Every structure is written in C-alpha cells, then in structure tokens.
C-alpha cells in the first residue's frame, strides 16, 4: 500500500480523498493555488504545497507544478480526483515516469476511453449495443448521407473529440445534414484540434443510466450497481440517484452485466463508470468515464462500499476485495449538487460564505469543503457541496432530501438549492417521467 499520496485537486473531492487515505493509514499531501491558501483541503492534509497562482492553468492544471510537488514531498502516488488532470493520459504517464503511481487507469485506457470512437470500438468488440450510426468517423458528406439513411433520422452529428454537449448538432433530415456537415467538421477542428465527426441516432427522451464498475490487475471485473443521472441541465448533472428507478429486473441485469463485460474485455483497472442511454427496453453504450465521479456517493450509500478506498487499493495492485455476489444494494440514495450560482440564471456566484448550517441526522451525508467564513473562489468550478441522503425507499429519500435542503443554510452567496427543491417536488421527478432533456424543457416552460 502507498505511504504518501499527493492529491492533485481541490474542494470537496480533495477532502474526500484525504478521508479515504486517512482510513487506509496513508499520509496525504494537498496542493493549492495562492487563492486556496486557507482552503479546507489544505488544512486537513498532513502536508501541503503551494503550486502556483490562482489561475488553474498555472496551478491545478500545470503538469510540471503538480509532478514537482509530488517529487519534493516524496509522494509515492498521485490521486487526480475528477476534472483538472484526472483524464489526462500525458499526466498519468508523467506520474509513472517519475516512479509514482497514478491512482486511476493506465494511460492507455485513458486514451482508449478519452476518444469517443475508440471507446465505441471497444464497446462494440465487447458486444455492447451502440446507437445506430457511423460507428466511426465519416470523412465525406456522401458517406454521411449513406450512413444516415441506414441509421434513420433524427441524428446527432458529433465531434469525435468533443464532450459535455459541445461540438454537437441535431440533424432532422437529409437536407439539414447537407447544410451542416462541413461547418460542424470545421468548427470541431477549430475547437478541439480534430475535425473528425461521426453520426449517431438521436433519442427523443432517453434516460441516462450509468454503471459503477471496478477491475483489478488479476482480471477480476465487477459492477457496483447502477445510477440514474437523467436530471441534467445542458448535459450537466443536477440530481443523481441509485439505484436507477423503474428499470425492469431483466433490463437492469443486462445493463449491469454489459458494463462488467466491458471492464473485463478491456482489462480496465481501478474504478470507472460505464454510461448508457436507455429508452423503453433498449439501452445503448454512451461512454466510459475513467475516473471517480462526482456522483459516486449515491452508490456508496446503497452498497456500503467505499469507492475511493477501493480505487486506491486497486491502484496499489491489490486483488479485488469483494465478489460480485457480495455487492448488495439497500434502500435508495439521492444526491444534489449545491452550486454557487444563481438558481435561475445559472451565473456563478462566488464570494464569502457569511452564514452556514449543514443538515445532519440519520441517512444524511454532506461532502463539502466549505464552512462559515469560507471563500468560494471565482477561478474554479462552482460546486460548493454535495448533499446525499439514503432512506429505505425512493419516496422516503425524496422527503428526506427536501427536509435536508430546508435545513441547509448558505448565506453570502447564491446557490442552486431553490431550483433543486422545485425539481425534487416536481411530479415528473417523483413519478420517474423524466429524460435527459427534461430540465431544459422544464426551464423553458416556467
């Protein structure tokens, strides 16, 4: 097991990793930008190193700064959290080249799953269902037209190197495809450095269902249950839950085993997430997130498995400590992301937190890195805290979460809490009549 882990991140996830390390008896090194000098992750780590000015590109995203900090503190492993350098294969390589362990998959797997086309190729090879479409880049308009006729409209035209909803266009018919093909490719080249585009059938009202997976170096692969993250605004997840509600046992079983099969067939090591779109009784592979995810706590709550500790142990070369039949889910968990933003306009709302009271009691978990007097910096993402609840069933969990949000007091900045309260009370959410574009449509209707 590692002796000392450097955490190349900030905020709640840095604190989450510190907590996991502490329980495993591993010392921790926090890195911080000048703006984060007084941050919680700096206070609770065993050591800390200032790595640069407030701008993320010169601190948390600076490969030499992070590697060098690990060097001088003699860390033997680096945990990247999520975001920042978490999926950067070059960074993972540099960590390894300096004799340290990257707590995540291999650089090869980061590359494989970082590229949409090679990810889909791997999924197809493992027998996972894909959305009808090009299954690879289309070079010419003629080729695109032909693929589109086979797959059927409507379609999505996507930049292979895009992500997070960027570089995508809806194409309703052949006429439109002819209009936008070249411009999409040109834009993709400008934005992402690659003009490769592909075509994929557009689902009108799909749900986003994902599977937590894990693999070790000895070929053991398993799934740790599913999550539903359909409640998204512009492809940003807002509410996440586990297990995914209202899936037939048969469909759930198919999705879970497909995900585990992909881990097994690619030899993926550590934890990750396999994302799917679900419509009716059909499911389609979307992508793999080769990292620990923001929403991992809902899975921890229902399974009792500490995923960050599992990730660290697998990265350290340990054998999978649990068998598939030991993964049991109990009850229902829901997470909301408390963001420092205007709840209606979604503009960031950084500033000092002048009053703070976090909810507590049974089944309530708060993953945060703030407190009264803490400064929410304008330089980084707006996630202030995650509130997760766990109850015997979904209805109880919703009631518990609404109560906990009522107790949650954050003064001095605006937060997304008012929006989340409305969404949780929305009949469509309660009755599981939602899909990935539900919130966007709901916001338009208000």
């Amino acid at each position, binding site marked *: 097991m590692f002796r000392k882990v450097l955490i190349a991140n900030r905020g709640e996830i840095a604190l989450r990793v510190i907590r996991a390390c502490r329980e495993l008896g591993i010392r921790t090194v926090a890195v911080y930008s*000048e*703006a984060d000098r007084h941050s919680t992750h700096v*206070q*609770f780590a065993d050591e800390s190193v*200032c790595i640069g000015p407030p701008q993320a590109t010169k601190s948390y995203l600076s490969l030499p700064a992070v590697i*060098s900090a690990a060097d001088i503190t003699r860390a033997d492993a680096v945990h990247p959290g999520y975001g920042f350098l978490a999926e950067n294969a070059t960074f993972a390589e540099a960590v390894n080249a300096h004799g340290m362990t990257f707590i995540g998959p291999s650089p090869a797997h980061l590359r494989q799953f970082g590229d949409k086309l090679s990810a889909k190729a791997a999924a197809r090879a493992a027998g996972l269902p894909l959305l009808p479409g090009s299954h690879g880049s289309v070079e010419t308009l003629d080729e695109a037209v032909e693929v589109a006729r086979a797959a059927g409209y409507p379609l999505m035209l996507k930049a292979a190197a895009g992500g997070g909803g960027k570089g995508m266009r809806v194409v309703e018919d052949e006429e439109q495809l002819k209009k936008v093909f070249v411009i999409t490719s040109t834009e993709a080249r400008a934005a992402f450095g690659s003009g490769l585009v592909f075509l994929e059938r557009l689902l009108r009202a799909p749900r986003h269902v994902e599977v937590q997976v894990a693999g070790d170096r000895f070929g053991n692969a398993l799934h740790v249950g599913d999550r539903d993250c359909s409640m998204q605004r512009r492809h940003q997840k807002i509410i996440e839950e586990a297990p995914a509600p209202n899936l037939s046992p048969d469909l759930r079983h198919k999705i879970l085993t497909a995900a585990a099969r992909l881990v097994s067939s690619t030899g993926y090591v550590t934890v990750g997430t396999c994302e799917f779109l679900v419509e009716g009784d059909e499911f389609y592979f979307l992508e793999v997130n080769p990292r620990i995810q923001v929403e991992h706590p809902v899975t921890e709550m229902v399974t009792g498995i500490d995923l960050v500790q599992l990730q660290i142990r697998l990265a350290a070369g340990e054998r999978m400590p649990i068998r598939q039949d030991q993964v049991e889910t109990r009850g229902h968990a829901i997470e909301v992301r408390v963001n420092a933003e205007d709840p209606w306009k979604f503009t960031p709302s950084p500033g000092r937190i002048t009053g703070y009271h976090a909810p507590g009691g049974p089944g309530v978990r708060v993953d945060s890195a703030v407190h009264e*007097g803490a*400064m929410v910096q304008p330089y980084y993402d707006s996630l202030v805290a995650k509130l997760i609840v766990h109850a015997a069933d979904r209805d109880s969990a919703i009631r518990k979460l609404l109560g906990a949000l009522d107790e949650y007091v954050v003064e*001095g900045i605006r937060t997304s809490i008012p929006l989340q309260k409305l969404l949780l009370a929305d009949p469509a959410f309660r009755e599981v009549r939602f899909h990935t574009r539900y919130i966007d449509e709901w916001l338009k209707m208000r």
Partner: protein
Amino acid sequence: MDSKKIDELLKLMQRRGVAEFTFEHEGTVLAVKFAGHAVAAPQQVVTVAAPIAAPVAAAASAAPARPVGGIAIKAPIVGTFYRAAAPDAPNYVNVGDKVRKGQVVCIVEAMKLMNQIESDVEGVVLEVLVDNGNPVQFGQELFRLGPV
C-alpha cells in the same frame, strides 16, 4: 495592496459619498466604515474570514515571512532549490553580491529539468533564505535584496 493603493481607494469612495465598503481581491480583504455616518445596524460590515484554526498542515517547507527588509526574489515554480549549476560549481550568488535584473541567481529543479531562475529586480544580496537542495513552494522567498 500597498498603502498608496489603499489611499486611492479611500479617496475614491469618499468622493462618491460611500459610508462603508468592503474590498476583496486575491485573498486580501479591506473593510472600512467612515466616521460621521449614522449607519444603521452594521450587520455585516466585516465578516472576517476567521479561517478555522484547524490542524494546520505542515507545509513541505512553510514559507516564513522573515522581515529582513529589502525586496524578495520568490520561487516562480515548485521544485528543488540549488544555488549552483552543479555540485562542484560555484554558487550563482552569495551574500554581498550585486545582482542585476535578468541575472541567474539559482536553479529550481522540477520534473528533472534544471530551471535557471533569473532575478527580476536589482540589488545586493542580503540573505539567502533557503538551504541548498531544499524543496521550495510556488511563491516562496528565496533571496532578500537590499539597495545597491
């Protein structure tokens, strides 16, 4: 934020008839209430950061703000500090040496790369604040320079 900047701010606020204000910039906070204003319930004039005095982590090497006077040359990157180009080479600079702008004063090794650090100020070396071979953080003071 030096006193010139503060004074400028005060004048500006007064001119515009401000009774109280808070100014925050890159970690520096200034909250001011002018006299002669019957201000109602100064509820949150201040709200000082009050950083929780929790187990403060021991920094890899805490940057001490030793008040020697003069101007500091600070580490522009994280790494290991070397005073010379090689173990048997002479130090780039010693106490008493005059330093020009752009002159190499030390090396900070990061990712096996030897980064020559140039002084961005001119002066005489008053003190070397880090021992040879020790780690330095971003922004840590390396040398103190006095006037020539």
